[in-house]
């Protein structure tokens, strides 16, 4: 299925390079967001990660009974260096948001800053604005973490 979609659409893959962008999100996967919203999320994640050098990932889905330990499990397997990664886990069905920071990331993102970002996120979520809340939360977190000197972003 995916192959035929990619063959007929914006498939940028060549013999030597992989596709830079596939259209999986708009067809097969049932995402709760529209394409512009997905683009906002994508840009917020990518830009906050590049700006800070930390690795922000966003999980949306059920977190089970013990949300905190589930979020910490997810953080441990989030790829990259978990010490420097930050996981935003949002479970709209349970109305829970968890932010997990590795120990290196926690030095630049103290729990207090995370709590502030979580507060602004829950405000937006309670108004029904998932994407806006996530984007603003990411902005707050990356503003707090700042840009380390010597980090090459390009």
């Amino acid at each position: 299925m995916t192959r035929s979609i990619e063959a007929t659409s914006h498939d940028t893959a060549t013999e030597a390079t992989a596709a830079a962008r596939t259209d999986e999100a708009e067809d097969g996967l049932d995402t709760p967001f529209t394409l512009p919203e997905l683009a906002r999320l994508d840009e917020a994640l990518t830009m906050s990660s590049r700006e800070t050098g930390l690795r922000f990932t966003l999980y949306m889905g059920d977190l089970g009974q013990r949300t905190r330990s589930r979020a910490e499990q997810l953080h441990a397997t989030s790829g990259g260096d978990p010490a420097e990664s930050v996981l935003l886990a949002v479970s709209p069905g349970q109305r829970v948001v968890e932010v997990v920071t590795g120990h290196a990331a926690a030095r630049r993102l103290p729990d207090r800053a995370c709590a502030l970002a979580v507060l602004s996120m829950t405000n937006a979520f309670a108004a029904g604005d998932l994407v806006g809340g996530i984007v603003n939360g990411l902005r707050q977190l990356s503003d707090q973490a700042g840009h380390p000197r010597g980090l090459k972003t390009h």
Partner: protein
Amino acid sequence: MSVVETLLVFAVIPLAIVLLFAVLTLLPGRAKKARYKPGQPWQYQPVWWEPHPLHGPAAGNHDDGPKAIGSSVYQEPQAIGSGHGSASHGATSHGSTSHGATAHGATSHGATAVGASAAQPAPVSAGPLGGARGTW
């Protein structure tokens, strides 16, 4: 002015104008997705988004681990906590399935579930974790 003319001028024409503007304003804004409201159940698959890597796969470096593809919409593998499902997209036929540590999680796309049994990244301890929790 007959009754019919009066009705046409004072009722039908204003109604037509109102309807025209209603159509012009309401049609483009129709929400295609059901908007999330707090308290309603969330019946979507879990999704995990990750940032684009600095030098993505389009730059041609296939050799060091899984790379984000495009908008990085990854579905989580079914086993709880077993790792990060990386959508191995259709371009895997030119050799990018050969990374030992690449996580090729099962996705819902039939053609993309290549190597779903490949090794998942082991959970790495990140030391004392920080963070915050919120409910709404």
